[in-house]
């Protein structure tokens, strides 16, 4: 048992340590001065951030509804929410392109409005929302479920309206779960490659740039970029761990 555990640990840790230690410090520094790299990393953060924000705004009412109400077809809705998790990533990209192209009325409407999805920042964000939203929905729903509906009922009986109750009771008690959801959504978005590369090779997000460097110049040239991207992901990871730390009970 211990041996199996050690193998699993080694399997995860060794490649990552190798990746992080392979490039020289000067190589890493040099990469920081590479405009193309910096642009791609910032674009990754920027698009993932917007995707997380959009998931927060779009997803919160639905997560609340799912946590509070029983209705016909609820299981179907929950199933649909999980679909983006199981669909292969390039297929997500292809599916989205099918809707936003000239052959679909939605695509024509968007073109009319001057919104371009293919090969644009908008397109990247749309794809990232698609893959990231389930993670936000799950975390937020769980957060709402952990709050007794009776707290809201008592608040209403004391005179608070439904929105008043949400902002005074539900949100202060659920914000931690919602933030966890936002970070999980952002983390999922920042690591997406397959779906984005189909919809927008350019402008280049960091994973696409890493892929291009690897294809064009080989392992050595892709590693420094990869290290910087991993660092961004680790920051998100540590914030997440900190937020989900079991709260120490004050006695």
């Amino acid at each position, binding site marked *: 048992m211990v041996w199996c555990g050690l193998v699993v640990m080694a399997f995860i840790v060794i490649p990552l340590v190798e990746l992080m230690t392979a490039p020289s410090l000067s190589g890493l520094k040099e990469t920081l001065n590479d405009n193309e790299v910096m642009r791609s990393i910032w674009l990754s953060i920027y698009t993932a951030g917007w995707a997380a924000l959009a998931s927060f705004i779009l997803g919160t009412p639905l997560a609340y509804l799912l946590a509070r109400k*029983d209705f016909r077809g609820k299981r179907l809705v929950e199933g649909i929410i999980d679909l983006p998790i199981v669909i292969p990533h390039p297929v997500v990209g292809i599916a989205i392109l099918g809707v936003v192209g000239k052959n679909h009325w939605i695509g024509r409407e968007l073109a009319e409005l001057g919104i371009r999805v293919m090969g644009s920042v908008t397109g990247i964000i749309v794809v990232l929302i698609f893959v990231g939203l389930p993670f936000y929905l799950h975390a937020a729903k769980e957060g709402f479920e952990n709050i*007794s509906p*009776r*707290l809201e*009922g*008592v*608040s*209403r*009986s*004391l*005179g*608070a*309206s*439904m929105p*008043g109750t949400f902002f*005074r*009771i539900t949100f*202060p*008690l659920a914000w931690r779960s919602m933030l966890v959801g936002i970070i999980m959504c952002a983390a999922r978005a920042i690591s997406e490659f397959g779906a984005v590369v189909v919809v927008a090779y350019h402008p280049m997000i960091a994973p696409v740039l890493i892929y291009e460097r690897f294809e064009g110049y080989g392992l050595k040239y892709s590693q420094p970029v990869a290290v910087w991207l991993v660092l961004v992901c680790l920051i998100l990871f540590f914030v997440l761990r900190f937020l989900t730390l079991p709260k120490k009970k*004050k*006695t």
Partner: protein
Amino acid sequence: MIRIENLETRLSGFNLHSINLSIEAGEFFILMGPTGAGKTVLLEAIAGLVPVRSGRILIGGKDVTRLPPEKRGIGIVYQDYVLFPHMTVMENIRYGLHFHRLGAEETEKRLKGLIGELELMHLVDRIPLNLSGGELQRVALARALMVKPAVLLLDEPLSALDPNFREDIRHGLERIHRSTNTTFLMVTHDFAEALSLGSRGAVMNNGRIEQAGRMEDIFQRPGTPFVADFVGMKNIFEAQFSGSRAVIGGMLEIDMGRQAQGDHGLIAIRPDDITIAREKILSNNKHLFKGTVAAIIDQGFYYEAHVQVGKITFKALVSKRSLFELRLFDGAEVFLSFEANSIHAL
């Protein structure tokens, strides 16, 4: 004050059916019934927290059936307190004031009154997490009463408390009910609580009201077999009536000492009204039957003896002491007796 007409709820599982209830202004009304009878659902329907399929709820003559909870002026206090965990005791108590504008003077007066009445002064800056059950329930009461609701709904407010706290809060409830003109509607399992606090009450079962009326009537003149059983009338028999005589099980004749209505019905006898003896004691107004002990069941503080008389099983309460003194055992021959006025026709 509260009038409920033909109320039915619209929940996915359990529902209330044709609830009719009328509660007077300023009354202390008790709602009783077994677990799962729908008492909490009824409270929540009155508070507007549960969807209603049909029927009406009137409060102070006003139809509130379609009003949201915040427009009804109803306070609710739950068994598990439901204090806002992210607020201090003071913030909890003042919560309702965000939505009920009061003058500073009136606010201070009410705060002082409630905090004094419920002895919360030393707690106001604490958060609910580390308070005892009794303290939490006093805070919950203060929070609900701060906005002076016309009706206060109490869902087993004392059940989760230690017995000594329970007594305290029970007296607190009594005082508050006297000093405000709020109508109280309280769910309880505890008959002592029900009888000491309530003037009138109702027994619920399976989403319906079985009986409503004065507390004494519910306990002394149960209207249905269910209520009789619920309030402890464990001996319920079908009987044929002729004049003041009742025949149960086709063979036992009982003189009820009064005229029965109809020619058949149910009669009930409380198990504590039946006396068991080993010898035949003759007495004029008593009924005396010879039977066999079929079972003796340990009920904690006392035993329940099942005595078989012909086809009929009587259940009688026996103290531990008399169990030994009478040398009762399964199969023992005994005489059981009860008086005519302890027979209730349902």
